[in-house]
C-alpha cells in the first residue's frame, strides 16, 4: 500500500479531494459532527493545499455573508408591524 507510511503515524483514514469537497460545507457550517469524518477531513486539509485554499476561501465567504447580508428593517416596516402587533 502506497499510503502505509501514513498509518504508521496515525490511524486516520486518507480521503481524496472529492470526499473532502463533499464534506466541506457541512464542516464550515458546523454540521460535520461525526468524529471519524471530522478527523479524516482535517487530516486531508493538512495534506492538500488545494482543499485547504478552497476551505479558506469558502470560510471567508461565510464570514462576509454574515457581516454584510443583514439589512436593517426600514422604519416604515417597523411602524407597520408595531401597529399590527399593538392591535392584537
Amino acid at each position: 500500500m502506497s499510503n502505509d507510511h501514513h498509518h504508521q503515524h496515525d490511524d486516520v483514514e486518507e480521503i481524496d479531494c472529492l470526499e473532502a469537497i463533499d464534506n466541506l460545507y457541512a464542516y464550515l457550517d458546523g454540521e460535520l459532527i461525526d468524529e471519524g469524518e471530522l478527523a479524516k477531513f482535517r487530516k486531508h486539509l493538512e495534506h492538500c493545499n488545494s482543499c485547504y485554499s478552497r476551505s479558506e476561501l469558502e470560510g471567508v465567504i461565510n464570514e462576509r455573508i454574515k457581516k454584510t447580508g443583514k439589512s436593517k428593517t426600514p422604519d416604515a416596516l417597523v411602524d407597520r408591524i408595531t401597529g399590527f402587533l399593538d392591535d392584537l
Partner: protein
Amino acid sequence: MAPAETTETTFHACSPDFFTAAGTSSLELGTIRTFKLSLEHNKTSPMPEHSDLKTWFATSVKENMDSFYSVARRLTGHNHDAEDLVAEAVAKGWQAIDSLDDHNRFRPWMFRIINNCYISNYRKKSVRPVETAYEDITDGNSIEEVSNILIKQPNEFLEWWGNPEKEFINNLLGEDIMNAIECLPEVFRVTVLLINLEGLSYDDAAEVLGVPPGTIRSRMKRGRTLLQKQLWEHAKDAGLLSGNQFEEYTT
C-alpha cells in the same frame, strides 16, 4: 383571534393552510410528518399561557424583524416587496399561532411562513431565477454527486478554486457575494440564506423547506459551488483575476 390550546408536544411546521398556499404536495407533507418524529427526542419548550401569548409573539417578532426582513429582501430582490412579505407573514403567523407548539421553534416556523408566502404571492413578480434543471438527490451516492457537480464546471475555474489569489480573497466584497446569492436559482438561494445568513442548522432549514436534511446538504454543495463559479466569472469579466495561479499548473 383566540388561539386554541394545544396538547401535542411536537412541532408543526405550519398549518394546513400554508401547505396548500405553498403548493406543497402530500408527498412533502409525509416527509415533514416523518421528520417531525425525528425531532421528538429534542426537549420542547411549551408555549406561553394564552394571556401572555400576544406579548410573547410581539416580542419575538420584534427581536427577529431584521432577520425576517434580510431574508425577505434577498428572496424578493425588492425592498418594497420584502416589506409587504414580512408584514403579511407576521399576520399569517399570528393567525396560525396554534400550529406552533414549542416557542423555541419560533424562528424556523416563521421562516417557513415567509418562504411559503413568498412562493404564493411574490415569486411571480421576482426577476430572479426560479427554475433550474435540478433534482434533489437525497439518498444517492454523495461522492458521486460531488463528482457530477464538478465535472460540469470549466477546468479553468476548478484549478483557480483550489488556488485563488490572496488579492482576490482580500478584495472580495460582501455586497458582491450577496448579489451573487440573489442570482442563484431559488432552491439554492433560500437554502444559502437560511444557513449562511441566518445560521440555521441543516435540520432547521430542512424543516423550513419541507425536505429531508440530506437534501439541504446536497443543495448547499450545489448552491455554493454555483455561487463560487459566479464570483469567479464576475471577477474574470471585471479583469480582477491576475491569472498567476495558473502558472503552477502549466509549469
